[in-house]
């Protein structure tokens, strides 16, 4: 690896850390602006003034906001996420479980959707403007146009309730046998796949078609190479940068944007965990979730950038 790339990666990483810091301040300020506090939220309608005062004192909410922020920052820098204000559970432990669930679902959705999208894109290019191309575009665009909760409910109705192939409730837990776990995530995984498929497939198709206009493709065709070989070996490597970009965006979505799917399928991931804690004004947990989401987003984007640079020699040697 050339020093230029190392320098570039270092730059990106430093920027990423700075961004994370900015995000943490934003989240903290945002949660402070929300009406009510954690004591009020925990006790809800049944709050009495004494109970509120006792709980506030116990949770240390009487300290100024900036002190609480620096306390938290000190904690996170030493790897301590603290404990949830609302139920006293250790955040790293409960969050870790949720995070691994989210990543598990995202991973399987990605394993299914990314190769499928690229393959469909390639097939669409090969049959461009023909019936198959139109069919692929129409189906994937339909599935992206439908709101994800609607796709989810359709799958629940037909696959879970009528056919009873897969369960509609995707509750997964520690010690669940692998095949049961896979059967549990089948429907949310299918929903997510349908949601992200079109974007990646369309981008693959467009990027490759763009390259296909080039002279060297014509040369390859004139050499008598098979159409698929032309696309896969000659066009695809040159179209990889925009495709990776879109793939990364969609991977980020699979991790950070799946709250609705989690709710429909009752999947114990990060989204529901975050929503619960926002409504309880449990700032340490919201902060921790926010940081993880931001970190995922930023790092995937860094990866996309780096791949784009590595894939394109022209970007590797900036003038």
């Amino acid at each position: 690896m050339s020093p230029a790339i190392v320098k570039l990666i270092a730059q990106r990483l430093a920027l990423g850390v700075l961004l994370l810091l900015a995000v943490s301040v934003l989240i903290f300020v945002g949660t402070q602006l929300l009406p009510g506090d954690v004591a009020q939220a925990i006790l809800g309608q049944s709050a009495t003034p004494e109970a509120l005062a006792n709980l506030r004192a116990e949770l240390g909410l009487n300290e100024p906001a900036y002190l609480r922020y620096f306390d938290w920052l000190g904690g996170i820098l030493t790897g301590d996420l603290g404990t949830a204000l609302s139920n006293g559970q250790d955040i790293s432990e409960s969050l870790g479980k949720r995070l691994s669930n989210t990543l598990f679902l995202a991973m399987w959705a990605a394993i299914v959707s990314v190769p499928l999208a690229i393959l469909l894109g390639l097939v669409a290019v090969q049959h461009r403007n023909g019936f198959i191309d139109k069919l692929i575009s129409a189906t994937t665009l339909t599935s992206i146009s439908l709101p994800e909760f609607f796709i989810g409910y359709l799958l629940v109705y037909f696959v879970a309730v009528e056919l009873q192939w897969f369960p509609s409730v995707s509750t997964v837990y520690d010690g669940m046998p692998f095949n049961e776990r896979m059967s549990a995530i089948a429907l949310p995984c299918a929903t997510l796949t349908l949601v992200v498929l079109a974007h990646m497939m369309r981008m693959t198709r467009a990027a490759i078609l763009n390259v296909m206009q080039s002279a060297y493709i014509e040369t390859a065709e004139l050499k008598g190479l098979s159409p698929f070989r032309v696309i896969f070996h000659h066009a695809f490597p040159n179209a990889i940068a925009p495709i990776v970009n879109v793939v990364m965006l969609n991977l980020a979505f699979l991790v950070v944007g799946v709250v609705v799917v989690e709710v429909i399928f009752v999947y114990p991931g990060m989204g529901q965990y975050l929503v619960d804690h926002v409504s309880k004004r449990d700032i340490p947990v919201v902060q921790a979730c926010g940081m993880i989401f931001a970190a995922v987003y930023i790092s995937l984007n860094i990866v996309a950038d780096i791949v784009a640079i590595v894939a394109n020699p022209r970007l590797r040697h900036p003038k």
Partner: protein
Amino acid sequence: MSDELKYLSDRVARGLMNRRAFMGRATALGVGATMAGSLLSSAAFAAGPQKGGILKAGMVGGESTNSLDPATFASQVPFALGRCWGDTLVETSPTGDIVNRLAEEVSASPDARVWTFKIRSGVTFHNGKTLDAADVVATLRRHSGEDTKSGALGIMRGIETISQDGDNVVVALKNPNADLPYLMSDYHLIIQPNGGNDAPDAGIGTGPYKVVVNDPGVRHVGERFADYWDAPNRGHADQFEIIVINDATARTAALQGGQVHMVNRVEPKIVDLVKRVPGVSIKNVGGRGHYVFIMHCNTAPFDNNDLRLALKYAMDREQMVDKILRGYGTVGNDMPINGAYPLFDESIPQRSFDPDKAKFHFKKSGHDGSVLLRTSDVSFPGAVDAAQLYQESCQKAGITLEIKREPGDGYWSEVWNKQPFCTSYWGGRSTQDQMYSTAYLSSADWNDTRFFNEKFDKMLLEARAELDLAKRKALYSEMGTIVRDEGGLIMPMFNDFIDAVSDKVAGYNVDPGAELMNGYALSKAWLA
């Protein structure tokens, strides 16, 4: 019944013979089909609970922020879960009577000021410790202490001292209260070893099930506790499982797909659809919960009783029950009490929609311009629609109602009990005294109608100390009338609890106390 028939129906009940075979054999013995059918069901009931299986409930009302500490219980899942692993001193039965549980005997001094609870012997906690009076004293103290954050603090405040006397726990009150046993049935007051002071959220109790998995907001699993003191009547399943399913559609789908055996809070608008699902039945019961429109009696323009009356007459209660509850509820009468409470006076006249009277009182109030109502769907399901219906019926009475939709997040801290006119709900309490003391006494923390009436306060204290039921009933009747005619409460409807239950479940008897058999469904019902 002939011995032969008895033998046959017994075999069916034990699952040794199927229904069809029984009907055939019974008819062969010369019994008609109808008769045979009823023999069969009584045999199934007489055979009693069947042990075994995993009983599963899909429930709304669980968050990842839930804790096993009973002091923090506020939503449905912790409530039902607490019923599984813990016991209270006493309970209310489906008919509203007090049932002794961990208290073997309850007695009061003649003036109802000092109460004695004899603690049951031979009860063990899940950690092996034997229950004694000291545990009960410590529990009650933890919920009533100065620095408690317990949700039961409101009802514990009337207690002066809690002391141990051998096997007895003696509770001395500041003022006489004939209803104290009802207060002790509160779901927060689960008896814990040493009062839960050592580990409040350990989930160790004396209940029929031990907590095995506690994954807040996701699932809770428990297994039968071998040394349970009331094993013949509770804890029939080998295991129970509560899966938190906050989405209504997902909950229904889970029941339809057979992943759970019972669900809570079926939305009124889909009840008729759920009824058509094979193998599922709807269990609904009228309870004490109610949906309210509340005005602050001390804030302009609602400090004028004529305006309050005008707004009360402008409410079309029948329409609310029809449209918002789809018939799964009963009309209210501008007081928080209905027939589900002991000592309710049925003879108080029902207020109905009367645009002319509304017009009359509105004019008399001298109020000019519109009235602002704040609402949100968190205040009760369908609240925004209810507000719009109310706007229309007000229009008919010449009153302009302006609706402001507030964000659901923060509604309970920023709108309810703060703004002068908004929608809300109450879960109801077990007695009239408790309901009125919680929200209508001048000094109540949750006096959300800002109702300050000296005469009412005096009567409330008088009724509390009154052991003569007829006199008490008369007092409550008068108090109800005062709230109805002078209070800030517009009370259109009492909502039913609507559960849906799979046919695989037996022993399911609704309880007006709360949904899912007052939270006891997982321990009292069984898999047939």
